[in-house]
């Protein structure tokens, strides 16, 4: 069941992105940025948490979950420390993704050269 939910959810998000990409002048950069903002907006009202509970790990794959993770870490820290926690906890959950992307890219860039 988790497999089917994840298939449908990630597929649906990609489908919406593709429809926007094909029918408007927006580029891939616009769409990913908009989706991150939407993810953050949905988590403001706890909606994205419900989606994650329902869909499972698949809901963490689309870029919308990046906005969700940013705001989630911020709120968790803010509950401990007060308003300043929003600034301190922002990267608590997304750090793994960003750091691994930069680290792997850098190591691989030292090894590989661009093709053509």
């Amino acid at each position, binding site marked *: 069941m988790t*497999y089917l939910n*994840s*298939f*449908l*959810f*990630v*597929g*649906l*998000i*990609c*489908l919406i*992105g*593709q*429809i926007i*990409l*094909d*029918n408007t002048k927006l580029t*891939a*950069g616009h*769409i*990913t*940025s908009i*989706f*991150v*903002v939407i993810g*953050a907006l949905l988590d*403001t009202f706890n909606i994205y948490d419900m989606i994650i509970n329902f869909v*499972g*790990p*698949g809901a*963490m*794959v*689309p*870029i919308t*979950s*990046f*906005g969700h993770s*940013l*705001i989630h870490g*911020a*709120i968790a820290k*803010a*509950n401990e420390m007060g308003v300043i926690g*929003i600034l301190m906890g*922002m990267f608590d959950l997304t750090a*793994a*993704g*960003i750091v*691994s*992307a*930069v680290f*792997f*890219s*850098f190591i*691989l*860039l030292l*090894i*590989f050269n*661009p*093709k053509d």
Partner: protein
Amino acid sequence: MEKKDYKEIVNRHKPTESRVANAITSFLVGGLMGVISVFLTELYSYLFEIPTKDATTFMIVTLIFVACLFTALGFFDKWVNFAKCGLIIPITGFAHSIMSAGLEFKKEGLIYGVGSNMFKLAGSVIVLGIASAAFFGAIRFLIFGGV
């Protein structure tokens, strides 16, 4: 050559892209990414005996590593051209944009090339994400009282 003839020739050689086919492809590829993510999460959860939430982080790191490696090897670009949003919207697109910007500017050196241009494409996601998350986070914390 007449302008009309020229347009005809251009139209004949333009790659034919069906929006419906694009939509179906990205739906299927995106769905496949979802299935792979669940499989990896359950695999890690079983292998390392950790809760699903921790295994999710392992899964995301794996997807990022695979996307970076395939981009470096040169064939991920073709996949992205084929699947479009099916690979751009999942976290693989984020890794792909960092890696391909790095590869493009590698010839300008490691500091001014790679260092300053790595986030050329992915930077917009991070900046807008942080700005909106700080704004919405403040709203949620101050008005709804956190939680």
